[in-house]
């Protein structure tokens, strides 16, 4: 494979947006744009002939690698069970519940300073948080706590294994070592 084609291939692959011939020419000052366009055309054909799982598509005036369209069902299967990330709101709510449980929603709202309804619902659905009981005060508010699954997900034997704020603070007190 030509050295210049090799560079182009790596650039397309690593680029966050479709790589335009103009951008490629900026990066490779010794190569003229005309040559780059020719090489890119060759590369597209090379991938076509090869007939693998990846193809080089011309999109939005640039070039980008994509999976072959007819393989989409497989990719969907891959994506279906992707690890769910907790949103920052969910993580915060979970943290408050984990450290302050058992507690009622108004307490969560007060600590976080925003309404936690949405986050709370998600956490209940993910079975990380459960209803522990009801408080015997007007309105009988629901009391929340964490679940066994919470312990499993966070790899904890029990709640007392949660790091304490003090432990985290000890870690950062020594800010001397700059991390860059």
């Amino acid at each position, binding site marked *: 494979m030509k050295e210049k084609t090799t560079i182009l291939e*790596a650039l397309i*692959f*690593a*680029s*966050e*947006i479709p790589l335009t011939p103009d951008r490629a020419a900026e990066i490779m000052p010794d190569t003229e744009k005309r040559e780059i366009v020719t090489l890119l055309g060759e590369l597209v054909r090379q991938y076509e002939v090869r007939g693998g799982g990846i193809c080089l598509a011309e999109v939005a005036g640039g070039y*980008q*690698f*994509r999976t072959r369209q007819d393989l*989409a069902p497989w*990719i*969907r299967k891959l*994506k*279906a*069970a*992707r*690890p*769910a*990330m*907790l949103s920052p709101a969910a*993580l*915060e709510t*979970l*943290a*408050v519940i*984990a*450290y302050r*449980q*058992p507690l009622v929603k108004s307490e969560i709202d007060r*600590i*976080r*300073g925003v309404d936690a309804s949405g986050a709370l619902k998600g956490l209940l*659905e*993910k079975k*990380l948080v459960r*209803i*522990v*009981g*009801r*408080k*015997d005060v007007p309105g*009988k508010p629901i*009391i929340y*706590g*964490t679940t066994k699954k919470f312990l499993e*997900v*966070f*790899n*904890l034997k*029990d*709640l*007392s*294994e*949660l*790091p*304490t*704020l*003090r432990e*985290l603070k000890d870690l950062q007190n020594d800010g*001397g070592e700059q991390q860059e």
Partner: protein
Amino acid sequence: MNYEIKLDIFEGPLDLLLYLIRKNEIDIYNIPIALITEQYLEYLDIMRSLNLDLAGEYLVLAATLIHIKSRLLLPPVEGEEEGEEGEDPRTELVRQLLEYQTFKEAALSLEGRPLLDRDVFTRGAPAEEPAAEEQEEDAMIEVGVFELVQAFREIVSRLDHSEDMAIDTEKMSLTDRINEIMERLTEAKELSFSDLLGERTDRKRIIYTFLAILELMKLRVVRAYQLGPFGVIRLFLAVEG
């Protein structure tokens, strides 16, 4: 002595000591302690005069060096320290230096690897999303305990009132007990104190069970009744779940 070395390059006292050993082309197994101690202390002086923040560990090692030096100067005492007779006072320090040197080497070899986002790169574009099907409910969660405690710490630091939010492991053990009691009460509706203790009656468990009940009563989740003085204390859920 020539002091144009970069003082902030040292990663700690062991690093400084290794530097001095290398600089003087000394055999690490036979360190001339007097010379090295003298140079080590001179470096500490320079660091201090430059107002460099001198970590306590530097002073600890200085003390160790001085101690070793004094032991080398003393004639071996008959009878005393019999077990250690013949043991070179430098042995432990040498062992520590060699161990540190090995890990320094390990750090260099790590850095020499083809590093992601420095030497090698993965696909830059986000993968195209084929029409998403519903997410599985039991999807794994990709955060760790560190992220959790950090999230909590950030919330606490946002709170302007100085409410005591310190969490210790005692409190968390208590929470474990509270959860356990609530689970059992939801099933059984009514339980006595000794039911809750079960077979295991170690001191810690009794205390935590008692504290948990107090906490639950304070929260108005649980009610306790006693049948006459010295009678059995019975616990009920204050509100049906």
